[in-house]
């Protein structure tokens, strides 16, 4: 498929897929709590409803930033998702590599917290500072895990070339090298924090600071924020599945010829990843405190990602 066409197709598809994923996540979460839970299409209903609601801007907010930031956030996470998706769909790259995608995702989180703290609510302010500490904690291992790829196997950091590399080996990256297995582990451990779910939902802890930076957003703004978060989660899981666990590579060259099938397999894998890294932790764990979360990230994922860099430097 032509890269540009793929990109254009990805833009509407990625939010749809993300919301679907979110719905599945919520359903599974409920089932694990012995409940029936909301319908799988619930996030769509939520979105429609929120879009149709009144727009309220709190009097204490600095209006412009408060209004614009959710859009910025959604745009950047959408862009990140579309780049990734179009890479998988067309197996070619028009713009940007892994670093750009990760950057766009971070951008989308930052835009949200900046917008939220422009509301002037003290809870948002606390959420802001918490999110920043959390980002420092997880972004670094995440980035290092990705960069370790450049030291080692892959010729470039473009997603399509990483996929090609995996296909040419006939094995997903995790299986082919020890260093990549460590990097994948670090990356997966960072997903719950990046998606900010329990135990790392510290920046928006409902019972502590009432959603933190989201507190003053309502109606369409909240809808945008929700979409942005949901696309972000989706992109993270899809990213993990595409660069570390590209299962279609087991099919060999056929994977590149039959891109639709590959995408489907990839989505299945990312659904599994979502289940493991998002649904399960938020079901069976309690929320940590900032200090504890920082400690966790400084110890485990950081060590993992550093060792993966060292190992890939010595070509293991």
């Amino acid at each position, binding site marked *: 498929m032509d890269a540009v066409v793929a990109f254009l197709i990805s833009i509407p598809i990625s939010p749809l897929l993300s919301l679907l994923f979110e719905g599945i996540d919520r359903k599974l979460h409920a089932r*694990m*709590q*012995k*409940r029936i839970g909301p319908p799988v299409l619930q996030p769509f209903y939520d979105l429609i409803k929120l879009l149709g609601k009144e727009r309220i801007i709190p009097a*204490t907010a600095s209006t412009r930033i408060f209004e614009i930031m959710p859009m910025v956030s959604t745009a950047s996470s959408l862009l990140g998702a579309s780049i990734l998706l179009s890479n998988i769909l067309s197996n070619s790259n028009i713009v940007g590599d892994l670093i750009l995608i990760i950057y766009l995702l971070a951008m989308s989180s930052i835009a949200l917290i900046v917008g939220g703290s422009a509301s*002037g*609510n*003290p*809870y948002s*302010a*606390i959420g802001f*500072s918490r999110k920043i500490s959390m980002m420092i904690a997880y972004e670094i291992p995440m980035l290092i895990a990705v960069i370790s790829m450049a030291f080692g196997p892959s010729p470039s950091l473009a997603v399509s070339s990483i996929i090609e590399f995996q296909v040419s080996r006939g094995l997903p990256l995790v299986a082919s090298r020890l260093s990549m297995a460590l990097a994948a582990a670090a990356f997966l451990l960072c997903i719950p924090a990046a998606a900010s779910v*329990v*135990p790392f*939902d*510290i920046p928006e*802890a*409902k*019972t*502590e*600071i*009432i959603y933190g930076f989201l*507190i003053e957003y309502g109606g369409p703004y909240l809808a945008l924020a929700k979409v942005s978060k949901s696309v972000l989660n989706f992109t993270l899981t899809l990213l993990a599945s595409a660069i570390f666990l590209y299962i279609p590579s087991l099919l060999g060259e056929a994977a590149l010829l039959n891109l639709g099938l590959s995408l489907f397999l990839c989505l299945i894998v990312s659904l599994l990843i979502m289940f493991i890294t998002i649904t399960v932790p*938020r*079901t*069976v*764990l*309690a*929320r*940590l*405190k*900032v*200090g*504890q979360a920082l400690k966790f990230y400084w110890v485990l994922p950081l060590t993992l990602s550093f060792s993966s860099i060292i190992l890939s430097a010595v070509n293991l």
Partner: protein
Amino acid sequence: MIERGIEKEVEVEYTRLRIHFGPVHPALKEPVSLRVFVKGEEVVDVDIVLGHVHRGIESLAEGRNLAQALYLVERICGICSHSHTTCFTQALEEISGIKPSERALYLRTLIFEMERIHSHLLLLGIMAYEVGFDTLFMFTWHVRERILDLFEKITGNRIHHAMNTIGGVRWDLTPEMVKELDACLGEIEKSIKYIHDAFMDKTVEKRTYGLGVLDHSRAIKLCVVGPTARGSGVNIDVRRDHPYAAYNDMKEVFSVILRKDGDVYARTEVRLLEILESINIIRMVLDRLPEGSIRPEENIFRLMRKIQEGEAVSLVEAPRGELLYFVKTDGKGGLRRLKVRTPTFSNLACLKHVLVGHEIADIPVIVASIDPCLSCTNRVTIINRENGELNVVGMDTLRRRVRKKWMQ
């Protein structure tokens, strides 16, 4: 007072932020307003503002007859409603000399302990919810439903049992109920073990151990009661110290659970283990349940007439600690004065103490561990906050106004 619940209020000092924790806050189902002063994430000072659920129950009760007052005091709170009515009827019985039958006393004890189980389970669920552990919260509340079902079967309502009446109880236990209770107790016992394990889970442990420490001497100084005190090693329990209802006969089957650490975990564990004790007591009650009638023959009007002028103080151990009633009757089926001292009211005093020095993230957990349910705590004078003037409405004017409104 102007709403400040979710509004910013930055203090003069630039790093010191004043947050209003409540009265509208998802972590607390009841409106309490804590004004928390923080520096970064650390709590430096706490102010407690009460009175959001002040409904004037005491003075309302003084304007009604005893039968009506009985249901009114029940609605002081929906969690230990039975404690309130028991305490109230006990005082009336003391004044009038009406003796409830043994069976009635045993049934009171039964509901009392069931209520303790339900209340403790509720709190454990809330604790789990505060630390973001929704699954555990769902689980504990699901276990609690069993108890509520039994309440509904025995008394006809899940929350406000309306079990007590002057001189006895209103609903009797049938043999099927006994059987069902027995089965349910076994299930709950099993679940408690599971919950206990879950509370020792790594992430929960991280959020509860060593937090909000209230040491022994301070606990005594601040007059805390109930599980909060017992978590700090203060050995008090009205059930043992001043036995009422059928607790005199139960002495050998329950022990007072004590923990020394005084932290959130200790308080939680005290509650967990108290559930097991309560189960023992219920088993004993079912075992020994005497035969007989459950209430006096006379109807409520006769009984009310029998209550002469007098006053009495009555004590019970509500799930959250010692509950005290002072009742003064007017001899005409009404009340001259009612005074309620509820456990949470005593316990709240320690909040400031246990919160300072901790992180914002710990506030809900610590507050929940004191188990502040505030519907009964909101009392005291009427302070007009807008102009800061203290406005103590005299008893008579208040009563007059109350009457007037009631008549409409």
